[in-house]
């Protein structure tokens, strides 16, 4: 077992974990943060995307021990003081989710994209979305929602 200290959505956790425990499983099973979804577990579907020190990354491709000393944000941390994040509002408005399985990963990646590059083009949004599989809504409303928050024409 290896000791691990990290913050998730601003709260500090100290845990002991096996080195082989994936960060996605640590978040879901140890911390009970099941908003991070697990799809393919090999980095293709994008459902498990979280932010590690600000960067959107696949939590299924990180070991929990690698996040020692890091600040993690998950979808549970997006809404502040009971107010939805602007991306969440826009997703609701544009019907950019249906079953919601892919949504948390897309929200976390979109939040990173918008912070890096405040007005991405529609193509840049589509490029980011190429790393996220959605099987019900279709991508157009998702692009619309992100473009609205980004102020993309």
């Amino acid at each position, binding site marked *: 077992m290896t000791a691990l200290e990290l913050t998730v959505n601003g709260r500090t956790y100290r845990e002991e974990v096996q*080195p082989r425990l994936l960060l996605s499983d640590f978040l879901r099973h140890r911390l009970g943060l099941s908003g991070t979804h697990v799809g393919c577990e090999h980095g293709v579907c*994008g459902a498990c995307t979280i932010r590690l020190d600000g960067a*959107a990354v*696949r939590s299924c491709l990180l070991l929990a021990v690698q996040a020692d000393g890091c600040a993690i944000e998950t979808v549970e941390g997006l809404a502040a003081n009971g107010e939805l994040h602007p991306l969440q509002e826009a997703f609701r408005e544009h019907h950019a989710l249906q079953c919601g399985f892919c949504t948390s990963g897309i929200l976390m990646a979109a939040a990173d994209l918008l912070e890096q590059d405040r007005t991405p083009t529609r193509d840049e949004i589509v490029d980011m979305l*190429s*790393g996220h599989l959605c099987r019900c809504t279709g991508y157009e409303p998702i692009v619309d929602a992100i473009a609205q928050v980004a102020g993309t024409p």
Partner: protein
Amino acid sequence: MKPAPFTYVRAESIEQAVDALRAHGSEAKLLAGGQSLVPALNMRLARPTVLVDLNRVPGLDGIDEENGAIRIGALVRQSSAERARLVRERCPLLAESLPLVGHFATRNRGTIGGSIAHADAAAELPLALVALGGSVITTLRTMPAADFFVGHFTTALADDEIVVATMWPRPRPGEGSALVEFAPRYGDFALASAACFLRVENGAVSEARLAVGSVTDRPELLDVEPLLGSTVDDDAVRSVGASAAGAVDPPPNLHGTPQYRRALLGTLVGRALRRAWIRATEASP
């Protein structure tokens, strides 16, 4: 889909990482960005007993200009390189290749050195480095990229040798390069890929490198003799493409037969050649 148990070593220095490799030999695996290794661990295609994490090793994340080349530390994340001004301005072939590597979130974690050391035959960065005539700096030596890649997932690295940086020659006036690939879906592994470097002097090609990937087991340099001393026109594009298609023997896969992949390669080689020519001649003084 969970990794088999292993001992985790967080290296704090490159010496510590080398020591761990020496102590455990081929049982140990290096972990950089983990965007290829961790899927292999999850699927248990790889079962190292010791995992040596390089991510906290200091000094491997610099991007500098050195002797006419851009030196990129092995741990530089693909997304950091994508955003780096030195890469965008002085290393156009790398800048063109990076958006084709995986996806937004995998590039945030995946490293330049990791992609080179992993040596996937369909990967863009090894192909670009070979086409540019770049080199790989390891803990033991500096090697031309063309000698570094041995086969699919296989490099010239010894068991206790670690990639420290890659060197990307910066273009001079009269030089141009291009990398093109085709994948069924954006971000997927390419079915065929090609990269071309040209130097043009007095309106004719004076130096050329043409590398192909995905259809071979490593980035492979093709014969460019016919190009030297000539201009690149439609006929040259067609004949170089056709001879490239004839020079490779790709295996069939889910998305294409060998004939299809050869034909695709011919087209892509022609496109890379034409683009490199346009860029080289536009850049001519």
